């Protein structure tokens, strides 16, 4: 190959657009002196939309840079879902930050940089590129976690996130080196072949890589950071992380898993066994731990662990040839549904959040009692939250139900009945703790008369998310077809 691989760079346009948007925002902080910063969320939103459109319109370029990254329908789907997350969370952030007088270009720039990392992660088909993408994503989200350093919680959260994140990166990197040692390549596609296919070295390497990714998707027992980080981070950041990081990490996991499946022998077996155990533990403990939480934000954090468990069921189901397309499409659909749902839910949490006064931390800012009587104070907000909670619980006719249906269908199709039964039984626990919030909103008298933060941009985000969740639940077929097309190319 001579000269600059122009075609390959051009194929990375979505990543570049996101980075460009971020740089624009950084520059705007330098050159625009106006204290009004409402435009920043707008720039972020436009960047996200342009990225999504460019990804969707330009025909996928296939493998680039010698197969280290792959632009295909799968990565396009992931890119669009991540952009959806960026757009929704930017709208939520606008309202939330404005109310706290904390709108800065850096915030949105970091969001876009993180998104660039996520999109790249969805494209990567090489362990090193994946590592770089993870670092771009993670460094941005560490900083975002500490964006509002008022009180103890955010600092603790960011610090914890960074330390544990560094460990997970180390695991991933070490695992990659072992895989390289075993197979002589860092490409996913080389994982099943090569000199050491089936050797213990490869098994250990895959195990370490799986652990590293398990950190990122917050699978039990690698979830310990999740509740503290999710609770400590500014609420819109939590929303963005819960949706975006999960989507990107699952895209990576799906690609690696599929590559490990194409070969015969030890690699595929060990990898799917690890993931099966992780899925079981994650579903059971994620739901059990969410059960006693009184802080709604913390409850949603644990519930996001539980949802990682359901997604893992989807990934594991892909090991059976016959269920593979259902499983992958199911995971993609679930991620899209989850993105809108979880950002919406966190947006409501953010709208109700108690604010710090005089530099002092608010006491129990996300307590269940803050939701009491919401149906009277603000019926639309309560309705939106109800839709999100029902979707998270998997009650029809919502996007969350279709996602669960799809994933469990894959599990049944792959004859993984124990996994499916565990998943469906633990989702009953989910119904219990999600319902508790609805009970407070609709059936308990209001505790205080504190006003709710509801700006136009937040209303826009909530309206969009509700529409997305409802439409996917009732008329989800077009998206299902896209997800099927996206999963077909990686098989």
């Amino acid at each position, binding site marked *: 190959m001579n000269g600059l691989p122009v075609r390959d760079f051009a194929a990375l346009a979505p990543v570049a657009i996101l980075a460009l948007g971020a740089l624009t925002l950084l520059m705007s902080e330098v050159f625009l002196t106006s204290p009004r910063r409402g435009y920043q969320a707008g720039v972020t939103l436009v960047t996200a939309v342009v990225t999504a459109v460019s990804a969707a319109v330009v025909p996928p370029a296939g493998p680039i840079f010698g197969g280290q990254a792959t632009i295909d329908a799968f990565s396009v789907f992931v890119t669009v879902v991540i952009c959806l997350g960026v757009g929704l969370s930017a709208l939520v952030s606008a309202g939330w930050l404005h109310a706290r007088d904390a709108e800065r270009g850096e915030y949105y720039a970091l969001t876009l940089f993180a998104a660039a990392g996520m999109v790249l992660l969805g494209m990567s088909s090489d362990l090193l590129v994946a590592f770089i993408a993870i670092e771009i994503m993670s460094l941005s989200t560490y900083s975002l976690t500490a964006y509002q350093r008022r009180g103890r919680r955010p600092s603790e959260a960011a610090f914890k996130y960074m330390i544990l994140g560094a460990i997970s990166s180390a695991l991933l990197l070490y695992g990659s080196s072992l895989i390289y040692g075993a197979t002589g390549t860092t490409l996913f596609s080389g994982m099943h072949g090569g000199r050491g296919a089936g050797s213990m070295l490869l098994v250990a390497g895959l195990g370490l890589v799986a652990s590293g990714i398990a950190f990122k998707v917050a699978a039990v027992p690698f979830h310990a950071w999740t509740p503290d980080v999710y609770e400590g981070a500014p609420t819109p950041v939590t929303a963005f992380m819960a949706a975006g990081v999960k989507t990107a990490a699952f895209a990576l996991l799906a690609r690696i898993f599929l590559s490990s499946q194409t070969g015969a022998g030890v690699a595929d077996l060990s990898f799917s066994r690890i993931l099966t155990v992780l899925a079981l533990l994650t579903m059971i403990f994620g739901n059990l731990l969410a059960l006693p939480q009184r802080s709604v934000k913390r409850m949603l954090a644990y519930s996001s662990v539980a949802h990682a468990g359901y997604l893992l069921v989807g990934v594991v189901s892909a090991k059976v040839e016959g269920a593979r397309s259902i499983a992958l499409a199911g995971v993609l659909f679930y991620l899209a549904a989850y993105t809108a749902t979880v950002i919406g839910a966190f947006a409501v949490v953010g709208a109700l959040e108690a604010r710090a006064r005089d530099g002092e931390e608010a006491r129990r800012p996300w307590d269940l009692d803050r939701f009491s009587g919401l149906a009277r104070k603000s019926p639309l907000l309560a309705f939106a939250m109800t839709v999100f909670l*029902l979707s998270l619980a998997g*009650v029809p006719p919502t996007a969350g139900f279709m996602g669960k249906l799809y994933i469990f269908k894959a599990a*049944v199709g792959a004859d993984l009945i124990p996994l499916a039964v565990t998943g*469906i039984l633990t989702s*009953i626990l989910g119904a219990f703790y999600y319902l508790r919030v609805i009970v407070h909103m*609709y*059936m308990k008298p209001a505790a205080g008369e504190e006003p709710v933060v509801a700006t136009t941009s937040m209303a826009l985000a909530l309206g969009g998310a509700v529409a997305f969740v409802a439409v996917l639940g009732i008329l989800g077929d077009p998206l299902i077809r896209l997800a099927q097309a996206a999963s077909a190319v990686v098989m």
Partner: protein
Amino acid sequence: MNLLTVVTFLPLAGAVLLALIPRDEAGQHRAATLVFTLLTFFLSLGLWFGFDASPAAPEFQFEVRLPWMPSIGIGYHVGLDGVALLLVMLTTVLMPVVILSTWKAVGERVKEFMVALLVLETAMIGTFAALDLILFYVFWELMLIPMYLLIGIWGSQNRLYATVKFFIYTFAASVLMLLAILFVYFHDGNTFDYLEARSALQVTAEQARYLFLAFGLAFAVKVPMFPLHTWLPDAHTEAPTAGSVILAGVLLKMGTFGFFRYALPLFPEAALTYRPLLAGLATVGIIYGALMSFVQTDMKRLVAYSSVSHLGFVMLGLAALSAESLTGSVYQMLNHGVSTGALFLLVGMLYERRHTRAIAEYGGLARQVPWLATAFLVVTLSSIGLPGTNGFVGEFLILSGTFLSRLASSTVLATVASIGVILGAVYMLVLVEKVFFGAIKNEENRHLPDLSVREGFVLAPMIVLIVVMGLLPGPFLAPAKPAVDRLVQRFQQAEARLGVPTSVGTVDAAVAARPSLPPGRAF
């Protein structure tokens, strides 16, 4: 436009329209809801008169089959057989009555209340109409949310406990059904369509047993069968009158309907295995529910436990699997909807007057409220199955059908169940006696208004149905007959496949051949 689809979604359209009316206009909300439920009822009459009940007619009528989410095999497939038709009619009749009954009882958050009721109506009709397993499941779960809100927002003191218990019980029981549906999908040629699943399902005997249990659990909780009934007394007692009426009138029928439509015909071999269990639990439920009713001090709780007993009869009739007992079960589903619905309406009227449900607070009311007392007595007589009322026809068919059926120890079960009839008469008549007769012990009972015109309009349709269905059961039995015959036939085929001597139908061939009841015969 398919009439069934219109009937199904008209209430939902009403709910959307209601969302546009300002919150404060309670009167408009009430009126609009009444208009929509009445409109639904009148349209459903088109279904009633358009239904062809002859054996040669297609099994499912008003059928529509459209792709809904074709990429994952889900279709919008609806249609009615006779049993579903009867239950849809029950729903559309009850709804306007229920709306009218809440005119005064619900003064708070009227808009949300009416929206919940309308959404619930669509979900209920949809559940009966669905012929696609996922569509069915969606409607089935959709019923939970409005009912959960009805109990939780407009219920009485202990409503939060009751509503969460209701939701968790039913949700937990139905998720396993979802897995079973998914399993069916992969063993019937990859479709969720009910009709195709029924004809093409290929599973081993063991798998069929698990599938039957998964479906059966969801339905048994809804019925509710002993010992899964514990959510019912709480939910019934705490729910507002409208909630109790719909719960008793329609929602409990979802369970028995589910057995009739899904659990039994989809897995006949497995159903034969578990038939003694079903029949046994049903009989225990009959006696247990009746005994529990005896000791209740709360009127609503008493009626709730009587439901456990009455639904036990329906389940016994289903398990007996003879044409007569099945017909009786279908009829008893309607009866229970009408009589117990009416009982809850009456209890609600008493509650509106005295704001208590404790039986001990009442006594000697007959002189003060003669019309209310008369209505209560008529409904009571129907509930205990006095000849001339609808209850008699259903119970008689079930008991005689079970007695003559080939179910193991059917005579014992039928005899024990008959004791339940006697117990039912005792506890209901004791209730009437305590509430309406004797001396007035409580001064507050001395000046109570009798039925208002509105309340008269609420009760009149119920009483008319009680009498008409008691004297002229023919038109109500006719639509059920083809569906019942097909189910019996399905089981006979299953037994032929298994190569075992038949255990469905009645012992005496002559009895089995006799038409279940000549139409229009008076008692």
